[in-house]
């Protein structure tokens, strides 16, 4: 085998590995979507049926029995609101750390990230009690605040890395031009790292959309999100696979569609600076 052939084969091997990894990751989602169109009987059939008469019965049942749109609306408000609040705090924080680093900036960043290592359940009790005392249980406000806090470290971290890519001279030029700090952020920093800022926001929305721990524990019917709705289908009524699949499919459909539309932005943002 000569070098050209060897290169060809290693390329083929890499492509195959990528496909296998992709299929492994996609399969559960595909199976979930497939099951959601089956009847309960077909859903538990062994061996599993691949060819069947698809039915929308499960979806209409969900809409009848539960307030899907209400939960979806809560998901939208809490994930977008949490992201917006996190960004509002993270942008100035990342700006300060990227452009005016102190001797301890690296330590601060690491410390922020280290808060993600704390198991959430460890602070469930105090947060639950505080929310209860403030009368915020089962409100969107509590979720927006909590969501902003849990995503803050990663959002700051990502924004920091994107901001650091901006040449210092451009900011100095804007300072010579007499911009205020606010204008500098809005008119120079954010437009210059737009890909990074957008992908950070998208990633944050996706993470919050799928967040279940806090929404299950702090909300019920009023402010419950789609993850809480999915959870409610799994336990009290026993496991109805096709209904569970249908509600899960309905829960992740919006975010998949959003991700699909923003694919270019996401990939561009997450690989930003990697090829320069």
């Amino acid at each position, binding site marked *: 085998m000569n070098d050209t052939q060897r290169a060809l084969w290693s390329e083929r091997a890499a492509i195959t590995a990528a496909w296998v990894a992709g299929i492994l990751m996609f399969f559960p989602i595909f199976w979930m979507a497939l099951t959601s169109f089956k009847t309960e009987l077909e859903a538990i059939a062994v061996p599993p049926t691949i060819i069947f008469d698809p039915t929308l019965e499960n979806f209409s049942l969900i809409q009848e029995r539960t307030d899907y749109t209400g939960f979806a609306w809560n998901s939208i408000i809490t994930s977008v609101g949490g992201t917006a609040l996190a960004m509002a705090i993270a942008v100035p924080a990342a700006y300060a750390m990227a452009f005016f680093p102190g001797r301890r900036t690296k330590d601060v960043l690491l410390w922020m990230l280290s808060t993600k290592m704390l198991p959430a359940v460890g602070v469930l009790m105090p947060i639950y009690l505080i929310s209860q005392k403030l009368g915020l249980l089962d409100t969107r406000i509590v979720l927006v605040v909590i969501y902003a806090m849990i995503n803050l470290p990663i959002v700051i971290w990502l924004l920091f890395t994107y901001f650091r890519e901006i*040449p210092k*001279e*451009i900011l*100095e*030029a*804007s*300072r*010579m*031009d*007499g*911009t*205020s700090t606010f*204008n500098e952020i809005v*008119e*120079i920093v954010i*437009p*210059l790292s*737009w890909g990074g800022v957008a992908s950070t926001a998208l990633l944050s929305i996706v993470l919050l959309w799928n967040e279940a721990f806090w929404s299950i524990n702090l909300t019920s019917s009023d402010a419950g999100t789609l993850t809480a709705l999915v959870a409610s289908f799994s336990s009290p009524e026993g496991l109805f696979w096709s209904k569970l699949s249908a509600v899960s499919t309905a829960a992740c459909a919006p975010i998949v569609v959003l991700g699909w539309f923003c694919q270019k932005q996401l990939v561009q943002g997450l690989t930003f600076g990697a090829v320069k």
Partner: protein
Amino acid sequence: MANVKIRDLRKSFGSVGVVHGVDLDIEDGEFVVFVGPSGCGKTTLLRMIAGLDDITDGTVEIGGTVVNDVAPSRRGVAMVFQTYALYPHMTVYKNMAFGLKQAKTPKDEIDRLVRAAAEVLQITDYLDRSPKNLSGGQRQRVAIGRAIVRAPEVFLFDEPLSNLDAALRVQTRIEIARLHERLGTTMIYVTHDQVEAMTLADRIVVLRDGQIEQVGVPMALYERPQNMFVAQFIGSPKMNFFRNSDIDAGSRARFNHETTLGVRPEHLRICDQEPALVSGRLELIEQFGEYALAYLITDEGTEFTVKLDLPPFDYVGKRMSFDTSIQLMHTFDTKTGERIRQQGIQRG
């Protein structure tokens, strides 16, 4: 328009001193060039005048006002950066208008100023383009345009030509000289290139290790360098230095071993008669067309360069002798490097 006064200016980053007490008066409308090797503190000095770096000690005065604690945009200065530092997400027009917009200038006034500056710099056709669709030279002109529209009292240039190719560098250098002629504004220009310093400056400030070595008009620095550092830094190729032992035995020039003799390569001429000033073996010739540089080495191992009209190809590997007139000799104290008056040389 304004003058600039710098008094005992110091800068240190932590415990590391970068600028150690600089005093300088820049007249209104003067073109002053800071020149020196990298790390000499020239850019730091400029950035302190601009307000981009804090002043550790001393004062900077622009137009009679101490500006130590005044924001960059309110010092009446504009800066052209080495990397141009254009806003990549804005068109040329918006780049130039940005500063005016921040100053809340009325829209039609902005338009008038931007178009006037674009006219001067011949970039009117590019106003709607984005910086990434411009060549290096065009970008540089936009950067200068951005500085002009703000009608600053002092222009600051931080190595503005170093990212351009050789031909464009010469062209832009001439344009900057013309611009100074036309605007008559005070300009402070930082470069490591002594050719830019010689051609552009009304006065040159030579810096080394955060201190001023010499300030003067270009020809004064060339003709009467205060020390060996300035002597070698100004002029290309750099000045030759000879010790007493390098000088030909019968030479009329006599000086003691505590003195170093400096002669510029263009001031040595071939000498057929004995005794000459200095002799050496010809090692290499570089041909430049209108002149040639001959690289030689004395018996004592001192290398020296001679600029000649005709390349002496026949002499490669052979000995050649050179002489010069006493007016073109420079003498320096070998230990301190300081210039000593020419009485140090006695003609026999």
